[in-house]
């Protein structure tokens, strides 16, 4: 029997309906984002100025308030965080990909645990930081070092996962080629695998830091100062950060502080977007096509 080659009306309608549904979902996300950005920019653009970036916050004269300490505090936190997660995260990724024997139960246990750690709520890391870094065994006090390490613990799983993917993307033929020349396993990893995986690792580092830069809850738990009248400098300084400052302003009743909060959000978003842009650029420019 020769059937009709034209599609049934109902199946075509289903096709169009499905496409429309997908478009609706996409536009919902995009519209929400646009409304948010427009709203924030409208609220906060008036508060933006050069002195806003450098001034200290003031409770008495909101117009003279700035995010100087918050920016500086965020930079210090990121420095500690990066210095902690890069060596530990890359070493863990290399161990899991190149050395760990997956037939052993503890290596599988490590893998599962790292995946679970990435899903642990950030407040839990805050409590961990408070109990082990600020007080307890390390007793660092509520300083930048403890805050940065807490953020580092929080985003370490993100970097490990990204690092493992980058290492795994280096094809086995490169390792074979290197070993066949008489290079040791370590030389192969250090001189072939890691350089080839570097763009992916760098992207992972930036994405980890951009997750850390927006975190508020763990910093509040480890004792961040929301009303900093000093510019923090050094690992022993008190903790303050952009999201903490924004959180403080949002919770103030006076309308002037709302403008300040919106301006702070604009700055934070600009930093975040440019970090992500660098990550995308790195990936596109240096990613090796095998």
């Amino acid at each position, binding site marked *: 029997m020769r059937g009709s080659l034209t599609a049934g009306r109902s199946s075509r309608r289903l096709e169009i309906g499905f496409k429309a549904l997908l478009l609706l979902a996409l536009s919902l996300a995009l519209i929400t984002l646009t409304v948010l950005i427009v709203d924030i920019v409208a609220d906060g653009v008036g508060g933006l100025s050069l002195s806003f970036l450098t001034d200290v916050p003031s409770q008495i004269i909101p117009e003279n308030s700035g995010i100087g300490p918050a920016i500086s505090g965020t930079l210090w936190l990121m420095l500690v965080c990066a210095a902690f997660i890069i060596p530990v995260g890359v070493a863990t990724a290399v161990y899991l990909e190149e050395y760990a024997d997956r037939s052993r139960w503890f290596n599988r246990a490590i893998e599962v645990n790292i995946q679970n750690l990435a899903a642990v709520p950030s407040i839990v890391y805050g409590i961990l930081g408070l109990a082990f870094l600020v007080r307890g065994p390390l007793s660092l006090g509520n300083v930048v070092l403890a805050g940065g390490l807490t953020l580092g613990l929080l985003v370490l799983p993100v970097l490990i996962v990204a690092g493992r993917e980058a290492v795994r993307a280096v094809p086995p033929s490169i390792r*074979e080629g290197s070993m066949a020349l008489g290079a040791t396993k370590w030389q192969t990893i250090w*001189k072939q695998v890691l*350089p080839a995986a570097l763009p992916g690792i760098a992207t992972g580092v930036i994405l980890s830091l951009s997750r850390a830069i927006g975190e508020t809850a763990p910093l509040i738990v480890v004792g961040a100062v929301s009303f900093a009248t000093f510019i923090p400098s050094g690992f022993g300084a008190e903790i303050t950060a952009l999201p903490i400052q924004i959180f403080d302003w949002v919770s103030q009743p006076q309308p002037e502080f709302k403008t300040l909060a919106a301006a702070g959000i604009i700055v934070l978003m600009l930093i975040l977007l440019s970090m992500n842009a660098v990550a995308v650029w790195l990936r596109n420019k240096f990613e090796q*096509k095998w």
Partner: protein
Amino acid sequence: MSDRTMTEREDPAETRASPAFDLSGAVHGSDGGAEAPMGKAVFRLEDVTVSYDAKPAVSEVTMDIPHNQITALIGPSGCGKSTLIRCLNRMNDLIPSASVDGRVLYHDQDIYGPEIDAVEVRKRIGMVFQKPNPFPKSIYDNIAFGPRVLGMKGDMDEIVERGLSGAALWDEVKDRLDTNAFGMSGGQQQRLCIARCLAVQPDVILMDEPCSALDPISTGKIEDLMLELKREYSIVIVTHNMQQAARVSDRTAFLIVKLDADEKHRQGRLVEYDRTEKIFTNPSDSRTEDYVSGKVG
């Protein structure tokens, strides 16, 4: 007694304190080994069985591989020729489930012996793979990588030039040594891999289907190169291409796939190993004849 003194090659960059075939670093009192019927043997395989997860992939291979000649391994897919060649420089070590039984003697030393360092083995026995695998670096750094990690002394520019010239690639790339090796053609990439291998001055070169990803012209260039290289190196080549084996090799080993008694597991076996001319014109075994004459594939 050293093979190196028997070659015409000058070794200004020779930095190894031990003779080429001493893999343990200990003084080895060998006198060169017994004369094999086809000349001096570089490898003697005695009852070699390579298994993955305790299932043999190729079984009970006994053969001598001659010095400064080209030895070809041919046979149908799955007969274990690649597995066999990869156990000659312990590349199978990289596969955790692989194990080797029997003895693989390289200049009378069992390379699977307890005191042997696989890294030392691979310094002397280089390998070229099926798919060209240049490193994602410049042409220069591709060649210089091996000599650098082995700590070879001497002028690196000279070492790189010698390697590239040895693989007949110098004239084609001398003006773009600092460009990425991924910009070369497939055939050039494969010759780069050969040059990379030559730069560390090995004794043996193993080639695992080196031309299977190349066009006929590039294949011809590599075959010419092999004939050139056998003056100084012993070469073992795995090939799918029988004409290639007939064109370049001095001796040919024919392997087949055998099913187990329970017909579940396949394993490779050596059927016949002889002078290439004999294998292709007057083989002793009817299975070899059927294969080389194209009756079975």
